[in-house]
């Protein structure tokens, strides 16, 4: 049951999907869509595991006072705030009660967590904090019910159009993620200086190809020649190399997939 049933599932569903690809009948396509639909729903729950992992790691970091534990608060506040904004919308022109509710929610959640897990390494469970958290949670619930300046939207996507949600995305996530990747421009310049050595023929070939491609939009008569050379390099030797890699990856993927379907590869099951 623990190992045989999953192996049987993988074999049955894997074989069905392989055979289904060659059966153009409408019922075969319906069965495939049915299974795909189920898999997407299961996958949503699987992705939520990662979020739980982040929360537990951050709380553990704070409780055990690991290095930079103070910043774990920032992570948790950002997470809760974003979720709050995504499930709510402010319908009035005043934002005070909206943000006050968020602060009450943050404090309530933190007290609950401290109460359940204890505060600090080796501390006993804190009943007072737990009940204080419950109390504040009730306060938050009462505000949510009686305050008409903002609303909860669990089953409709008004939260996606919430100004705070969109501003958090555009002005926190977008600049942070794009700037973190922009650091790579500097790292590649440092790597070019320190690591890129034309020690042998192979490295020299790589360097020459890279130089031709990097200079392909140089203006002037030399630029035209380099541009034509670059186009040829991309469409001929580069194409040959990438085609070999694509074929190799394709064969590797098919071989690994077959190993998984036939039960030879069982890494996905974990230990036990």
């Amino acid at each position: 049951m623990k190992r045989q049933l999953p192996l049987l599932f993988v074999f049955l569903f894997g074989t069905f999907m392989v055979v289904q690809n060659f059966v153009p009948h409408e019922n075969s396509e319906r069965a495939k869509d049915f299974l795909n639909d189920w898999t997407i729903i299961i996958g949503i729950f699987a992705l939520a595991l990662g979020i739980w992992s982040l929360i537990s790691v951050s709380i553990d970091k704070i409780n055990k006072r690991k290095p930079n534990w103070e910043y774990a608060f920032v992570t948790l506040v950002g997470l809760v705030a974003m979720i709050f904004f995504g499930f709510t919308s402010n319908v009035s022109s005043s934002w005070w009660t909206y943000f006050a509710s968020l602060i009450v929610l943050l404090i309530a959640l933190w007290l609950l967590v401290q109460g359940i897990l204890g505060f600090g390494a080796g501390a006993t469970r804190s009943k007072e904090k737990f009940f204080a958290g419950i109390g504040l949670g009730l306060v938050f619930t009462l505000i949510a019910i009686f305050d008409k300046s903002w609303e909860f939207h669990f089953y409709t996507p008004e939260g996606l159009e919430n100004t705070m949600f969109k501003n958090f995305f555009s002005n926190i996530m977008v600049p942070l993620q794009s700037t973190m990747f922009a650091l790579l421009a500097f790292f590649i310049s440092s790597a070019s200086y320190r690591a890129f050595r034309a020690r042998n023929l192979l490295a020299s070939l790589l360097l020459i190809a890279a130089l031709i491609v990097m200079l392909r939009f140089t203006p002037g008569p030399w630029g035209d020649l380099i541009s034509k050379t670059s186009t040829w390099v991309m469409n001929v030797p580069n194409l040959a190399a990438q085609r070999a890699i694509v074929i190799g990856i394709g064969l590797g993927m098919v071989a690994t997939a077959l190993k998984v379907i036939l039960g030879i590869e069982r890494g996905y099951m974990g230990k036990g």
Partner: protein
Amino acid sequence: MELGQFLWTSLAAFLTLSVFSFLYKDNPMYKFAEHLFVGVSAGYFVIILWHNGLVTNLYGRLADGHFYFLWLDSAKWWYIFPAILGIMMFTRFSRKWSWVSRWPVAFYIGIATGLAVPLEMANRVNRQLYSMMEPINWQSFFGSGWLDMGAGYSDIIIFVGTVSALIYFYFSKAHTGVFGSAAKLGIWTLMIGFGASFGFTVMARISLLINRIQFLDKNWKRNSFDFTNENFSPGYLVLFWLIILVFLIYAISEFLKYLKNKNASSVKSA
């Protein structure tokens, strides 16, 4: 630009500069920005999964049913089963019951691998091999002009290059003799391909930096000094210089620390 929008843009500029400050050294501003990003992006993903995933694909289909019947009275009652399989995933956190999470994982793995086998074989392998077998352009073997990619010699280079690179990847036989020479030609072809990739990679990385410079200039600095803006107030300038001041103070304090350490080390060596 309205004040509210300018405040948000200033926050984005502050966070951008905080991340760039990492190039000098890891510092509290960078750590704050990094941890904030992790939390906010996780929260964003939860919302997107909920509204675009669970609500539309699961709740939307079971909405005509009732909670107290566990939605089995819904017209599409069978959708409760993938939900049960999904919830079984959470048994992963229990040492005693973690084997239960293997069932939904096996369901997903089986379908994904079964889908992959024929389609990857057809599109990554077969289609690529077919296009490699196309006739060589003998009529225009030398092409016209400088390095003609439609010329016959280009077709031969593609064919020979691909076959030799595939030979290079075959490690079950020792790369000696004729086989070894073909493998050598293969690695030369691969190096040209990697060089072309590197050239594009440099362009990609520089583009990322250019975009940040464009944002800081067009979206933030120009709006800070846009005196023609009807919403403009001296507060825009104050906020701009305040953010610059924060980083200037950090830079000056680091420079003073560096001088102090340099003096200390020269006194020590003397």
